[in-house]
């Protein structure tokens, strides 16, 4: 690797283009569209970004934005509670997916992103990001397969890369593939303690026997019993609801109840119409996890699917850990790309194209 390290340092000291050069290049580009004369170029970079995005929104999505933003379309939801109640109603009217037959698997495909190194500055005094693709196949007995493909680790700045080298070039699991078949618990899912289940535990339980009445479900969640382990508090409840929505398979009636419980949770705020991490339109609600950081759930209001989640820095001044990181930066996100029933652990649902088996 030494050759690449040396090459990366070669001519790494560059001078940013002057404002004059940038302005001139921009005018040259606009001249292509005949707009140069009427465009007032503002050399302040930040302002240009905001202007450009503002125009993009005006051009493409005014109607969609108005429908969900607070104070927007009078007919659209103006609060997290209203948006969650609406999506709960959509879910309650949906048909459940049939139970898995013998030899069948429930397939889930998730993309994830992380800004790593923030939490342990002593151990890793540098930041890096990586986007991974995770696929899981579960049979009804809890056995299955996980195929995890790590993306390329990338450093946000040259300084981070040099710090990484200085700290010993730790293995960042860049571009690795992990492919594992796992057995189900003894006695199948029925024999598995529900206390063992949860987001990080593989295999996970079928959630179909949980209460679908929102009040009953709320009682069970708040008691932190069964599948719902965790500390007390509304933030933990929000996280438990998110974990359950992203779990193995939450049938529509349960999904409706979960959204309804979330709608009644104090502190949940409406973010509004957003694009999820991979660009799909959805609606987001958020809960402030800790000062300066919020957890957002993004769902599709038309079919009640959870599209993704992200953890966003809202105030970099709230913690020394975020110092220097711009507000709006994603610390982590998940995008739930596809799910469905398939007949083997090498199969994907129709429409999910993948070059690796």
């Amino acid at each position, binding site marked *: 690797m030494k050759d690449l390290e040396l090459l*990366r340092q070669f001519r790494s000291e560059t001078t*940013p*283009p002057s404002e004059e*050069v940038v302005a001139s*290049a921009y005018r040259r580009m606009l001249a292509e*569209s005949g707009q140069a004369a009427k465009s007032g170029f503002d050399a302040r970079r930040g302002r240009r970004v905001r202007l450009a995005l503002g125009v993009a929104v005006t051009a493409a999505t005014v109607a969609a934005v108005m429908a969900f933003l607070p104070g927007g379309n009078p007919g659209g939801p103006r609060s997290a509670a209203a948006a969650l109640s609406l999506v709960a109603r959509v879910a309650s009217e949906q048909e459940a997916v049939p139970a898995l037959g013998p030899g069948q698997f429930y397939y889930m495909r998730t993309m994830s992103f992380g800004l790593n190194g923030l939490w342990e500055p002593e151990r890793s005094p540098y930041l890096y990001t990586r986007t991974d693709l995770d696929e899981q196949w579960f049979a009804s007995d809890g056995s299955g397969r996980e195929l995890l493909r790590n993306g390329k680790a990338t450093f946000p700045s040259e300084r981070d890369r040099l710090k990484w080298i200085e700290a010993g070039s730790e293995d960042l699991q860049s571009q690795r593939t992990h492919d594992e078949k796992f057995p189900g618990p003894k006695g199948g899912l029925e024999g598995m303690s529900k206390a063992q289940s949860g987001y990080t535990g593989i295999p996970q339980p079928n959630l179909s026997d949980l209460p679908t009445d929102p009040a009953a479900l709320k009682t069970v969640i708040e008691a932190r019993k069964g599948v719902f382990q965790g500390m007390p508090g509304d933030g933990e409840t929000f996280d438990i609801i998110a974990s359950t929505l992203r779990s193995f398979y939450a049938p529509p009636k349960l999904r409706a109840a979960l959204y309804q419980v979330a709608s009644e949770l104090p502190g949940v705020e409406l973010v509004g119409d957003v694009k999820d991490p991979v660009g799909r339109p959805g609606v987001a609600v958020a809960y402030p996890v800790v000062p300066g950081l919020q957890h957002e759930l993004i769902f599709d209001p038309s079919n009640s699917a959870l599209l993704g989640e992200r953890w966003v820095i809202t105030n970099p001044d709230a913690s020394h850990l975020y110092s220097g990181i711009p507000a709006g930066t994603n610390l982590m996100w998940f995008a739930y790309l596809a799910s469905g029933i398939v007949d083997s652990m090498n199969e994907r649902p129709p429409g999910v194209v993948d070059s690796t088996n």
Partner: protein
Amino acid sequence: MVMLETYTDADAIAASRGDHECFRHLFDRHFDAVHRFLQRRVGRQLADDLAAETFVQAFRHRDRYDGSPDARPWLLGIAVNLMRRHYRSERRQLDAYARTGIDLVAVSGFDNAEERADAANQGRRLARALSSLRDGDRDVLLLYAWADLSYEEIALALGVRIGTVRSRLHRGRRRLRALLEAPAEPARDHLKGDESSR
């Protein structure tokens, strides 16, 4: 405003079909990166011109964009394409650096003469190695090392197959390693004198 930050390059390009100003998003996001890549290859002056031309070409051909959320590989591909007219100039500058120890392209980031001399020795080997590569191999190697593009992104940028990217990268790195291990030729004395007086 949170939602505004989620706009992808593909969104901006699509929106720019209705409103040309939306292409500004792409410009704001990527101009510096394209300029920096070009500056490392051919120097600042030429980079000013080629980076500007890259965005003119991108705007002109935005209907051909494939819809990827990140347009950086596409833009760098255009930049490399424009660079092809300047391969000779790039090689000439690298050769000069290899012979003299003076890099006409880079900005010196070293404060003392000793650091500068060490960097120049290493730099001369790298310059010699880069100059000796086939132009296509150098494109792949530098997109990988300087622009941090993946194999797939390089293939997209250059319009070649991933297998071609792999073989070019392999060949380029093998050549690079061989020349880095070889002893450096002494720099020309009179030019060395020029350097120390700079």
